C-alpha cells in the first residue's frame, strides 16, 4: 500500500500528463482558422519620365498591374510590356494595360475560379481578342490569388515577373523565372497579321502554377523584373523585415514605395553590380550598373483581421 503522498504524486503526475496531452491536442492546427485577406500597397516608376500621355491608373510606363477582390479571393497581378514594339510604332503599354484591366474585370465579376490564376491569364488573353479595338503588343503576366477561406495562395507566372513570400525575414516561396534566352522572357503576344510567326508568342498554357499555404503575418511581394534586376533578395528582405508586425495600409504602402524607390535609384547607378549585371556576367556579357526599366511592385500583407469591405 502506498502512502498518501505517493498517491498524491501519482495523481499529480497523471493529471499533469493529462493536461500535457490536452496541450498536445489543442495545437494551433485544430482551432478553426479565420479567413485571411491581403492588405496591399503598390508603387512603381516608369523608366521614361517624359511620358506625355495622361497618368493612367494602374500603369507605370510599360508595366501594368491590378488589385481586385471577389467573394472568395483577393487577387493581384502584374504585366510587363515588351518595349521592342516601340520601334514599330506601337505603344507597348497598351497590351499589358488592357490585359490587366480585363483580368481585373474577370476577377471582380467572379468569372474565374480563384484556385486557378492560370485560367484567369488564359481567359484574359482570349477576351482581349474579343475587343473591337485591335491591340498589338506583348507582355509577361504574373497573377497571385489568395483564397481567403483556404488560406492558400495560388499563382500563375508566365515570363520574368515574379513574386516572393516572406515569413519571419526569410523567403519561403518564390516564383520561377521563365526565359527563352537572356533578357527575353516568355510572353503573351498579339502580333500584326503580316508578321505572324516572326514574333515570340507563348501560349497561356505555358504559365507555371503553384500553390502555397500562408499564415497571418506573411508578406507577399509581386513585382516586375525592373525590381528583381536591381535589388537582390537580401536587400528586399531588409526593407520588408519590419513589416510583419504592422497591419496598417499606410505602412505597407510606405514599404512598397521605399522598395520601388530603392530599386529606381540603383537602376540609375552606373557602378552598382545589380543582379542583372551579375547574371549578364555569368553568361559572359560584361556589364555593370543597374538596369533602367519600368519598376512595378505590389506589397501585400496576409492578415486575419476582418475589417474587409466587399
Amino acid at each position: 500500500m502506498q502512502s498518501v503522498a505517493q498517491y498524491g504524486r501519482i495523481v499529480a503526475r497523471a493529471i499533469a500528463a493529462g493536461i500535457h496531452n490536452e496541450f498536445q491536442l489543442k495545437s494551433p492546427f485544430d482551432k478553426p482558422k479565420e479567413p485571411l485577406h491581403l492588405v496591399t500597397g503598390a508603387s512603381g516608376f516608369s523608366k521614361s519620365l517624359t511620358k506625355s500621355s495622361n497618368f493612367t491608373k494602374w500603369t507605370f510606363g510599360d508595366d501594368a498591374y491590378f488589385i481586385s477582390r471577389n467573394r472568395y479571393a483577393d487577387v493581384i497581378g502584374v504585366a510587363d510590356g515588351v518595349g521592342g514594339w516601340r520601334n514599330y510604332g506601337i505603344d507597348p503599354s497598351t497590351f499589358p494595360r488592357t490585359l490587366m484591366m480585363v483580368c481585373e474585370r474577370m476577377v471582380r465579376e467572379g468569372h474565374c475560379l480563384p484556385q486557378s490564376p492560370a485560367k484567369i491569364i488564359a481567359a484574359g488573353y482570349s477576351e482581349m481578342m474579343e475587343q473591337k479595338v485591335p491591340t498589338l503588343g506583348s507582355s509577361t503576366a504574373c497573377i497571385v490569388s489568395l483564397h481567403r477561406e483556404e488560406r492558400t495562395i495560388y499563382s500563375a507566372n508566365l515570363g520574368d515577373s515574379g513574386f516572393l513570400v516572406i515569413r519571419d525575414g526569410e523567403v519561403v516561396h518564390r516564383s520561377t523565372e521563365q526565359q527563352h534566352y537572356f533578357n527575353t522572357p516568355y510572353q503573351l503576344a498579339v502580333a500584326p497579321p503580316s508578321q505572324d510567326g516572326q514574333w515570340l508568342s507563348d501560349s497561356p498554357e505555358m504559365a507555371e502554377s503553384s500553390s502555397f499555404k500562408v499564415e497571418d503575418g506573411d508578406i507577399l511581394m509581386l513585382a516586375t523584373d525592373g525590381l528583381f534586376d536591381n535589388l537582390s533578395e537580401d536587400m528586399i528582405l531588409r526593407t520588408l523585415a519590419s513589416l510583419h508586425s504592422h497591419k496598417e495600409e499606410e505602412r505597407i504602402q510606405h514599404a512598397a514605395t521605399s522598395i520601388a524607390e530603392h530599386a529606381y535609384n540603383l537602376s540609375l547607378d552606373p557602378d552598382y553590380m545589380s543582379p542583372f549585371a551579375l547574371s549578364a556576367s555569368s553568361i559572359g556579357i560584361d556589364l555593370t550598373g543597374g538596369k533602367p526599366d519600368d519598376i512595378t511592385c505590389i506589397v501585400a500583407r496576409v492578415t486575419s483581421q476582418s475589417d474587409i469591405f466587399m
Partner: protein
Amino acid sequence: MATSPEEYSAFQSLILNSSEYYRQVQKNTGDVSPIGDCLIRLEGQEVTDFSSQYGSECSISYVAHNLAGKASVFPSYGDYTQACVFRTYGPWWQLAPSGRKRYQRTPSDFTSEDFIEVSFSECLFPVRIEVYETFNPGAIVRILACDRDGGSDIDRGKITWVTLWSGKPRPCRQRPRIFAPHLKKTDFATNLIRLELCHRYLDYYTELDGIKLVGTKTPPCDEVCIHQPVILDCSDEADGTLPAELQREIPENDNRNGQSVDSLVDHIGDLSVVTDDSSFITHLPKEIIQLILSYLDLRDLCHLSQTCSLLREHCYDPLLYIDLNLQPFWMQVSNDSLISLIPRCKHTQRLNLSWLGKGSHLCHSHIKRLLESCTEDLCTLELASCNFVDSNLLKIVIETSSNLVELNLSSCTKIEDFSIFSVVPLRKLKYLNVYRTKMDTTSIIAVLRLSPDLEHLNIASCLHMNSHINLILMEIGTHSKKLKSLDLWRMKTVNSEGLSHIYNNCPYLEELDVGWCIELKSENQCFINLARKCRRLKKLFLTANRTIRDADLIALANNCPLLEQLDILGTREVTKQAIICVLETCKNLILLDVSFCLGISASDACSWRATYPRRAIKISFQNISSS
C-alpha cells in the same frame, strides 16, 4: 451623322456635356440619379433570357449578360466591351438578301425586334425603371413586368406579363442617358423585367450598361409615383428627324393586297343605301367584305368576329390567315388560343410563333395539331427564341411539316438533340436559321445533303459546330450550289481552305458574314479569290478581321459591282485610298462600317459622308474626346 467638322464638333460637345452633367449630379448628390427615401433601388442581378447578342457565347465582351450588375461605363459614352449589345441595328439586316418579308396583319404598334429579360434579387412594386444607355440610345420600345403569381388559372401555372410602358421607336440624339419613362402603376410586386427593343432608326448598335429597378416592398402611394425626379427628358421630342439613309423607303407592313384606298372609297360611294333594319354591311358582296377585312390586323379580326355571326364567318375565313403572326401576342397566346386557331389555319403558309411560351406553358400536342391542320401549304415556320421548343417538339415539328421551305430556330437554346434532321429530309428547304443553337455537325451535314435547294443558311454562333466548321463548309460547297446567303458570324475556326469551298462552288452567293472569324488570313488570298469568284456579292461582313488589306478592297471594288453592305471593322492595314476606291466603284454601296480601323479617322468619315450622301458610313468610337 456628321458630314462636316463643325457638325462633328457639335456632336462631340453634346456627348461630353451630357457626361459632364451626370458627373456633376453625382458629385452634388452622391448618386447619378437620386431617388426618394422610401424607395429601394436594385441593380439587375441576372439576365435570364435574350434574343440575340453581339459578343461570343462564352465571352464577357459585348454580351447580353453585361446588362446585369453594376453600370460600369455610364456616364461615359462610346462603344465599350462592358456593355450589353445586340446582334443587329438599323434596317440593314432587313435590306440584305437574307432579310425576311414582313408578315401581313402585324399590328402597327408592334415594332419589337429584340428582347432581354433581367431578374432582380427582390420583388418590388415598380415605381421607376432606369436603363443606362451608353451608346445610341432610343431603342427601347416596351418595358414589361412579370407577375408570377397572377393570372386566373385556367391554364395551370399561368404567368402574366404587364406592359409598364410602350412607345414608338424614334431616332435619338447621341448622348449618354438614363432612360426612365413614366410607368403604369401595378398591383403586384415583380422581380423580372423584360425590355423590348427596336433598332430600326438607330445609327449604330445600341449599348445598354445597366438597368435598375426602383420600387417599394409594399404597394406605393400615389405621391411617390408622381414626384419622381426626372433626370433627363426622356421624350426626346426634338430628336424626331430620321438619319438620311433611313429616309429612303423602308419596307412597310403591307396589308393591302395590292388595292389602293382611293379606289375602295370610290366603290363604297357607288353603293346604294339599303333602307331596312339590317346593316348595309350584310348586303355587301362577300368579296368586298373580305377586302375590307384584309386591312385589319389579327387583334381587330378577333374583335370583329365577336359582333355578329356573319362577320364571324368572314373573320374565320382561312384565306385571311395565310400569314399568321402570333409573335406580337406572345404574352397572350395559350393552349386555348392555339386550339381555337386550328380551324382557321387550313391554308396558312407562313406561321410565326416566335417568342411564344413565356406567357403560359404550351403543350406539344397542341402545337402538333396546329401544324397538322396547316397541311402541306405551310412553307414558313418561325420559332425564334421559343423556350418551349425542345428536342421532342423539334421532332414533332419536322415530322409534321416536312414540306417546309423556311425554318427559323434562332436562339432556341433548349434543343439538345438535332438528330431528327438526319432522319426526316426537308427536301424543299431554302432558308434555315439556327443562330445560337446547339446544332451539331452531323445534323447540319444531314440537312445539307438532303436539302439541295438551300439558299439561305445562318449558322452564326453555333458553338458545337466550331470544331468541324471547315468540314461543314466543304459539304456546303458540295451540296448547296444554289446558296445565296451564308452567315458564319463568330465561327472562329473558319479558315481559308474552308472558305475556298464556298467561293469555288457557290457562284450565286450574294451575302457572306464572316465577322470575327479570326483564322481567315488575307495573305492566303482568300478574300481576293472570294471577290473574283462571287461577283454577285451584295453584303460582305469582315468584322474584326485584322488582316484585311488594300488589295482585298480593291479586288472587291473591281469584281463586285453589286456590293451594297461592307463591314471592315477593326482592321489596321487598310488605307484611305482603298476605301475611296470602293466608294467610287461600288455605286450601290449603302452601308460601310470602318469603325476602329487605324488608318481611318472620324474626319475622313465626315468628308466621305459629305461627298457620298447616299452611303451610310459608320465609324464607332470609345473615347469621343480623343477621336
